[in-house]
């Protein structure tokens, strides 16, 4: 598999792959990095938002 890197397309087999994730109430995020001889040459991230921004709407009451 070819990976787009800062040095052009490279065979994934020649690179060190590192992956990670974050999961909390707000998001589930995964990321993948490819390293070449200690140099980061590719990093992608995928953030899945779990919840958006709410706003409360209020109608006044005539008591």
């Amino acid at each position: 598999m070819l990976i787009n890197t800062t040095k052009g397309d490279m065979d994934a087999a020649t690179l060190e792959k590192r992956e990670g994730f974050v999961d909390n109430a707000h998001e589930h995020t995964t990321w993948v990095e490819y390293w070449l001889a200690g140099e980061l040459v590719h990093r992608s991230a995928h953030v899945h938002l779990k919840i958006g921004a709410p706003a409360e709407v209020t109608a006044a009451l005539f008591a």
Partner: protein
Amino acid sequence: MANTQAMCTSFLEKLLVGGHQFGAVTLASRGSLTVPTKDTFKAALFLASATVNASTAAYSASGEVSGAGYAAGGIAVTNAVDPASTNASATAGTAYWTPSASLSYTSVTLATAFDSVLIYNSTQGNTAVSVHTFGSQTVTAGTFTLTMPTNATTTALLRLATT
């Protein structure tokens, strides 16, 4: 400085004066436009060091990410599903909307940490809609994808609720 997830206050005001068009609607005549077309909304990424929040009234490039493959102003939001609303009781309900596709910034290098996206209306003077934060990220010759929450009353990207 920091970014804060929020619905922009000016957005709420603009809603009251018909300043945003998220979906199809047929209006009684207001003198001219009775079947307005949808506005175009865009999504711009902001540095973790920026300050975008409820006070943000319009898109500005100040504090926006920059780097190879990223165009200032961000990308267009896919909006194929009109806003919806559901009543929860005689006194409460929720109107909600979510973009109909993920936001994907492909083949970019964003070396400085970013942690938020500003949704804004590029048809109506770049007026701000909302700010959404996430864990700080960088991208190197890669893709940043922001998948939307489920389009429902309790999770949608934008929710206007009465209680």
